[in-house]
């Protein structure tokens, strides 16, 4: 049996761990509220933009001279997987789940004979670097970002668009964790380039915007050309916001569990410590009594 002192030290150590996890949980809870609010605030813009793009795209879709962002490059060979993860760990299975989703997709594509490249937005996606050392095209440093701003998303999206224009890939898919609730975050993959029918909300496309005679200034094509890159940016922005909220939710849970486990452990160690202490006292008493009787 471990010595009394060792047990005591161990219990103290678990106690301080518990203090840390408890603090982290509370910080995550506070940050979660803010991140959730940011995600909610970003929704009206994304929804309206989506509706307009959908209605314009359905009017112009398939026509000649349509932007490659809508029509695609005509090929389906090189896939770029944009993996959005967090900058910090200790968030439970949050990053693992996103990376796993991306990896599964990558294996599928490779099995189909496609070329897969990765764009890592977030530090914790870097495990992919070990798995696919030659497929990483970029991993911008996002560690300085405290709260996600539209500018941050724009930097990432602009980089993507530049690479697309340069013909580096044909299809881009974005992986992130959708925020369902504080307890549930769902890793999702979504095609962002070219704009697919699946990413455009079917409800939005059905909205009767196109019914009325709408005047366009400048032409419909020009507006669409300007809106499509912006739509990519907004998708990236939305993913980053959702991710930020999911990360905090996931961390809150992980830390809640860790705190509970530490509590259980402290209880167990305390019992063990008290037993050992009592055993030591009993032994000592027996020694004294038998010593006294022997006289």
């Amino acid at each position, binding site marked *: 049996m471990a010595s009394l002192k060792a047990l005591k030290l161990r219990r103290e150590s678990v106690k301080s761990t518990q203090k840390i996890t408890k603090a982290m949980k509370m910080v995550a809870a506070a940050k979660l509220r803010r991140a959730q609010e940011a995600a909610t605030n970003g929704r009206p813009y994304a929804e309206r933009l989506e509706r307009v793009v959908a209605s314009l795209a359905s009017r112009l879709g398939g026509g000649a001279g349509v932007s490659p962002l809508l029509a695609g490059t005509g090929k389906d060979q090189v896939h770029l997987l944009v993996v959005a993860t967090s900058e910090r760990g200790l968030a439970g299975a949050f990053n693992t789940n996103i990376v796993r989703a991306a990896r599964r997709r990558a294996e599928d594509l490779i099995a189909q004979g496609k070329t897969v490249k990765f764009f890592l937005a977030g530090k914790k996606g870097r495990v992919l670097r070990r798995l696919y050392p030659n497929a990483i095209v970029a991993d911008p440093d996002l560690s300085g970002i405290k709260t996600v701003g539209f500018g941050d998303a724009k930097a990432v999206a602009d980089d993507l668009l530049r690479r697309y224009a340069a013909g580096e890939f044909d299809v881009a898919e974005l992986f992130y964790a959708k925020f369902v609730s504080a307890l549930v975050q769902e890793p999702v993959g979504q095609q962002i380039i070219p704009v697919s029918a699946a990413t455009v909300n079917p409800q939005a496309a059905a909205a009767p915007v196109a019914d009325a005679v709408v*005047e366009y*200034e400048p032409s419909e094509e020009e507006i669409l050309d300007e809106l499509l890159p912006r739509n990519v940016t907004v998708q990236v922005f939305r993913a980053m916001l959702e991710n930020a909220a999911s990360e905090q939710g996931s961390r809150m849970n992980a830390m809640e569990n860790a705190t509970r486990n530490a509590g259980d452990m402290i209880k167990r160690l305390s019992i063990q410590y008290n037993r050992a202490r009592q055993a030591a006292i009993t032994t000592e008493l027996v020694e004294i009594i038998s010593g006294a009787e022997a006289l």
Partner: protein
Amino acid sequence: MALHFELVTPERLVRSEEVHMVVVPGTDGDFSVLEGHAPFMSTIRDGALSIYRTKDGAAETLPIRGGFAEVNATGLTVLAEQLS
């Protein structure tokens, strides 16, 4: 005689209110929107958005950057990339 006006940026819904008239800096020139304007869609250049709350009141100007404006039956929606 009220026009429903919404100003939205990627970060949040900035305004949602009833106003008299809004002058929008369109790419091909400024245009003003009153109630009952025909359906219209335009991109925006960087410039100032002027909001007239009442017919005779002074304009409130908001500098905006990039985006587009949509007028439909429900009113005017300005999607600006940034408020500067």
